[in-house]
């Protein structure tokens, strides 16, 4: 498959469901290509997808992109690799994407030897690792215990290249993986074929967000070629180009450290990487190193139910209230707490619920980091957020908060005031369950494969009517 000592892959879009540019994909695939890979997930959206077990992308968008990738892969007879399926990469997420794959296979009469790799972690297994001191904290260290493992609604491990390589080695046309390192999706085959790991991993790193590596935004696909000496990367798509600066800058994106990137098997080190323009759209990378670590680690991601939420949205325009907003809201909160205790009694212990006032116009966006919270605006937007163990209680907390927000007095005005402008009637919006991230740890498995379960399905749409 490799041509002249090099290997070429296509990153068709930054995330499955993002919207593949089909014309650019066709153009890119006119050149010999070894594989297509794409991630389908992230924690960037927040803990809800992992906790609740549902994807964050519309099904139709995922189906369109998957269909384009799978048909392109079969046409060129090259493997397609998709990881972090269904946003969070839990078993339920993988299965929801597998169902879409079955539909595509039937509709387009494809034959697809599919390897499904599950990344959700068995809680008894994790507790055994914990007991053996093989679950290690990352910074910032969160507490870890059997009960935290139990209370997490779902825990996934982020796989490296090894489970993907095993699936490819066993003849998969299509690898559908649960939670996975984005770069590993692209590095797996080049590393397996003996290309330098620094170059192979860096090729994955710069390709995994699709055209985000370009110097301007636009819809297109990324073509990346790894050889023994260098990586070259270029986009296909109108007006798109990679420049040395844009490719170098991609190392910064969503990474705390722009030079050192931790993977399961070691550290990708960009310190000595060089970036040169080959032509107007193509960049050459050299010098990137990869240092294997003696201990193989798998990052864990967990989400636990934080409670149920109800909110009220509104605003304040009265300058007398705005100039004493902090103390006024503190008084409103005390009044609400007293009323909750009176009305709900034992059903709503003070420690069991949480009330937050997001004050838009003051510091709702930056919170403690806001340096200009003293510059008072003429109008303040307020979102009252009530979180409680049940939706019923959260709803009642928000309902009980409305009257104090409306009418809590200030000394500047004599008599009854209405200080809060409600946006809606009914004022209370139920938000359903909310989740929090429960882990920031790595696991130390005995082997790179033991935390991941692979099974093969020979999907055949050609036999169905």
């Amino acid at each position, binding site marked *: 498959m490799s041509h002249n000592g090099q290997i070429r892959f296509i990153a068709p879009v930054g995330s499955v469901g993002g919207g593949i540019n089909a014309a650019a994909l066709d153009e890119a695939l006119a050149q010999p290509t070894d594989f297509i890979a794409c991630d389908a997930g992230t924690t960037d959206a927040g803990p809800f997808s992992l906790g609740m077990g549902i994807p964050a992308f519309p099904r139709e968008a995922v189906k369109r992109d998957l269909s384009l990738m799978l048909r392109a892969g079969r046409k060129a007879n090259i493997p397609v690799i998709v990881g972090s399926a269904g946003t969070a990469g839990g078993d339920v997420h993988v299965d929801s994407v597998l169902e879409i794959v079955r539909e595509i296979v039937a509709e387009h009469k494809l034959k697809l030897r599919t390897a499904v790799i599950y990344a959700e972690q068995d809680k008894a297994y994790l507790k055994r690792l914990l007991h053996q001191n093989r679950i290690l904290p990352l910074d910032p260290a969160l507490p870890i215990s059997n009960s935290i493992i139990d209370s997490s609604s779902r825990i996934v491990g982020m796989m490296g290249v090894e489970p993907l390589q095993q699936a490819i080695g066993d003849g998969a046309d299509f690898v559908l993986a649960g939670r996975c390192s984005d770069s590993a999706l692209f590095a797996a085959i080049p590393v397996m074929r003996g290309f330098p790991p620094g170059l192979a991993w860096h090729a994955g790193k710069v390709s995994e967000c699709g055209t985000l590596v370009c110097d301007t935004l636009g819809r297109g696909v990324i073509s990346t070629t790894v050889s023994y000496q260098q990586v070259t990367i270029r986009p296909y798509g109108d007006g798109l180009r990679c420049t040395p600066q844009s490719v170098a800058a991609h190392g910064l994106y969503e990474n*705390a450290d*722009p030079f050192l990137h931790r993977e399961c098997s070691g550290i990708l080190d960009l310190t000595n990487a060089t970036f040169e323009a080959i032509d107007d759209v193509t960049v050459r990378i050299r010098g990137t190193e990869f240092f294997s670590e003696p201990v193989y680690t798998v990052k864990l991601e967990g989400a636990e139910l934080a409670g149920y939420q109800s909110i009220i949205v509104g605003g304040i325009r009265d300058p007398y209230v705005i100039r004493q907003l902090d103390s006024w809201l503190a008084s409103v909160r005390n009044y609400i707490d007293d009323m909750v205790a009176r009305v709900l009694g034992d059903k709503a212990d003070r420690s069991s619920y949480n009330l937050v006032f997001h004050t838009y116009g003051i510091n709702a966006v930056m919170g403690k980091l806001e340096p200009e919270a003293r510059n008072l605006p003429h109008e303040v937007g307020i979102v009252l957020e009530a979180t409680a163990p049940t939706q019923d209680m959260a709803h009642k907390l928000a309902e009980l908060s409305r009257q104090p927000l409306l009418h809590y007095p200030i000394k500047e005005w004599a008599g009854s005031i209405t200080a809060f402008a409600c946006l809606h009637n009914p004022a209370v919006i139920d938000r359903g369950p909310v989740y929090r991230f429960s882990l920031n740890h790595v696991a130390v498995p005995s082997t790179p494969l033991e935390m991941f379960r692979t099974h093969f399905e020979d999907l055949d749409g050609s036999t169905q009517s």
Partner: protein
Amino acid sequence: MKLADIAALIRSKNAGPFTLTFDIMFADQASYDRVKNSGVLTQASFAKLYGCPEEKVRFFQCDNALALKFSIPRPLTQGEAGDGDMHGGQQFVPLMNVDIR
């Protein structure tokens, strides 16, 4: 001159659920060198601007990307009660007004 008038892009983003990262990017070498060599952007100046402990601030000079970068722990974990910026994308604004001599 304000940093916003020299930089091509100032941005902030989550780097995982527990970290905020800030990128200050420049269109040309001269602009990058001017800010880098001004000595105005340091761990200490960033810590002061964002009211966080200096030892928690990580500062990187990325010469080949023409970019300066800071990372700090998130004051609240992404999605924790009270967090008002799920993606961390609007935390960069105080950097805009930093005076570069």
